[in-house]
């Protein structure tokens, strides 16, 4: 089960995933702290933001250039307005080649368009080859983080899965044995595959080159052994030139893991040349999927995202609800922003409230996306499109009362005089254990502070006279 929007977001913490996420996030935090000592982080962020902003501002011309250069190098480019069209392209390419056996590299864009379902329906067997994705696929689960798809699972669950698959026993503590087992299973798949399907981290327009970063080596295998390589990319991932690429291919792992280089970075410009052992065909499927419509709006900066996952780890809400708690392929703060922006159905509007607006994500973002401001704007946009009438009326009334000192003070005096004695009579020193709707949510888990019968403005006037 995949797709941009999968189910309604969950409003409860998931205690099963929180310890795993804290552990992963703490590791990320300490790596990041070390890395920041090596580079001028603020200058690096600004440079990265400029590169991405330039790319998104000039997107149509850069896409045109990318296509021309890639075709000149012998590659093929396919445009898709939406996910369905992208899936049709990929299925068609496989069918035309008579291929039924594919290996997949990790790609959130493929989750966004639910490619797995489209391939299965077309009778094309596509195995995920990133270890985390393989585990998640074999469990019938879905990834919960942009870069660490199985971060919500623990070793015991993995050992049980591999034992079921192989009939062997695995010690959950022997991680190396688990990895070795997966290596063996997947190596056979790589050697047999006719098609390699991958995502793309960035594309360099000036030469028509696709850059793919990874840790495990599965991308290298998927773009070396099968005779066809299909790369799927959201249009916003293009950048202008190699000067920008040299910065971003360092910034992405720096933001994601605190290292200046991914274990492997593949730069692919068209199919294999004379005598080379790579794929005979390289296809790039360019997905719009609602991205063009975000350009030129106050939300354009959301398209600058390089999918590093830093805002997920930084986010306290993500750590509580986990990636699946968002009910969408893209989770965490960036997911709460781009999902409603790309989703034409409006079903994901609620995601804008999946944040305490603390701003930790903004500090973590390597391209300085103002995620908190965008979430605030998305809340307003959601109300414009689908008014929550009772709440809107409440805020309108509140604004009328609190925009005039006299009525502000009158509401304060009323609340203080009416409530405090009542609450004190119940014996809680100014704290109450139950509030009526719409504040009952507060007292479900917390005592509530009562208004003071003598607010500050009254005390000031009493002691100092009017001012």
């Amino acid at each position, binding site marked *: 089960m995949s797709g941009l929007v999968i189910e309604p977001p969950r409003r409860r913490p998931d205690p099963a995933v929180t310890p795993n996420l804290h552990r992963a996030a703490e590791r990320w935090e300490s790596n990041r702290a070390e890395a920041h000592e090596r580079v001028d982080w603020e200058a690096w962020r600004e440079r990265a933001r400029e590169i991405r902003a330039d790319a998104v501002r000039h997107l149509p011309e850069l896409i045109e250039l990318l296509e021309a250069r890639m075709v000149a190098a012998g590659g093929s480019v396919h445009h898709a307005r939406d996910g369905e069209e992208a899936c049709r392209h990929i299925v068609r390419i496989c069918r035309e080649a008579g291929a039924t056996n594919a290996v997949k590299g990790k790609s959130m864009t493929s989750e966004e368009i639910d490619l797995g379902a489209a391939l299965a329906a077309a009778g094309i067997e596509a195995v995920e080859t990133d270890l985390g994705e393989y585990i998640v696929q074999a469990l019938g689960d879905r990834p919960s983080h942009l870069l660490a798809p199985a971060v919500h699972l623990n070793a015991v669950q993995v050992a049980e899965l591999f034992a079921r698959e192989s009939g062997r026993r695995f010690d959950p503590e022997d991680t190396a044995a688990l*990895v070795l087992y997966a290596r063996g299973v997947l190596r056979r798949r790589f050697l047999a595959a006719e098609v390699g399907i991958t995502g793309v981290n960035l594309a360099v327009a000036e030469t028509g080159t696709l850059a793919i970063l990874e840790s*495990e080596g599965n991308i290298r295998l998927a773009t070396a052994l099968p005779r066809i390589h299909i790369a799927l990319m959201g249009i916003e991932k293009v950048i202008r030139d190699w000067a920008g690429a040299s910065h971003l291919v360092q910034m992405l792992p720096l933001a994601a893991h605190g290292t200046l280089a991914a*274990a492997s970075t593949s*730069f692919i410009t*068209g199919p294999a040349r004379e005598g080379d*052992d790579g794929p005979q065909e390289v296809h790039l499927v360019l997905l719009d999927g609602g991205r063009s419509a975000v350009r030129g709006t106050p939300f354009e900066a959301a398209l600058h995202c390089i999918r590093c996952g830093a805002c997920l780890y930084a986010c306290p809400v993500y750590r509580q609800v986990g990636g699946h708690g968002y009910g969408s392929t893209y989770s965490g703060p960036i997911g709460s922003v781009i999902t409603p922006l790309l989703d034409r159905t409006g079903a994901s509007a609620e995601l804008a409230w999946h944040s305490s607006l603390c701003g930790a994500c903004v500090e973590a973002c390597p391209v300085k996306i103002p995620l908190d401001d965008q979430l605030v704007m998305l809340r307003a946009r959601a109300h414009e499109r689908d008014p929550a009438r009772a709440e809107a009326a409440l805020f309108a009334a509140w604004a009328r009362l609190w925009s005039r000192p006299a009525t502000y003070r009158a509401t304060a005096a009323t609340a203080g005089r009416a409530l405090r004695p009542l609450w004190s009579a119940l014996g809680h020193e100014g704290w109450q254990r139950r509030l009526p709707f719409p504040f009952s949510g507060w007292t479900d888990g917390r005592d509530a502070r009562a208004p003071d019968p003598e607010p500050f403005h009254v005390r000031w006037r009493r002691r100092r006279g009017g001012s």
Partner: protein
Amino acid sequence: MAADDGELIGQFRDRLEELDGTLHEAPSLPAAHAIARELIGAATVARWSDEVLEGIVGPEQEAPAVDADVSLIIADVAVAGTGAVGFVHRGGRARSTGLLPPRQVVLLDVADLVADLATGFAHVGLRASPQPPPSNVVFAAGPSRTSDIEQRSIRGVHAPRDLTVVIFRR
């Protein structure tokens, strides 16, 4: 660059070792061959066809990449600032050679060691030019690894589990 060699090599070594790679220095190509021979021992070898790699092991030790224990390849570039080595794949330099065997020994000419990534890109033809860049260039920073199971870092999940570089002067 000769005057800065030592400093550049030192920086490359530091970065490579942080990434769990290993660096050996050789004063000449024959010396590099001797180091490579010792590293390989009796293991089977898949290698690129290049005169720099001739004569390290005998034909009886050679095997197809899919069966070999060790790959013997050449870095077309190395970046001191990041510890990465770059491979330009083409005829005679197959992608699968350095990828399938569990270990790899990489020879690096000191003339191909550059300071930063931007210079490294240009060094291997990743730049705007009338001709397209090479079809496939891979920069490897240390061995392949995964942290997908409880963030425990394990090497060699799909690609080689070690990365040994032998840097030499001509």
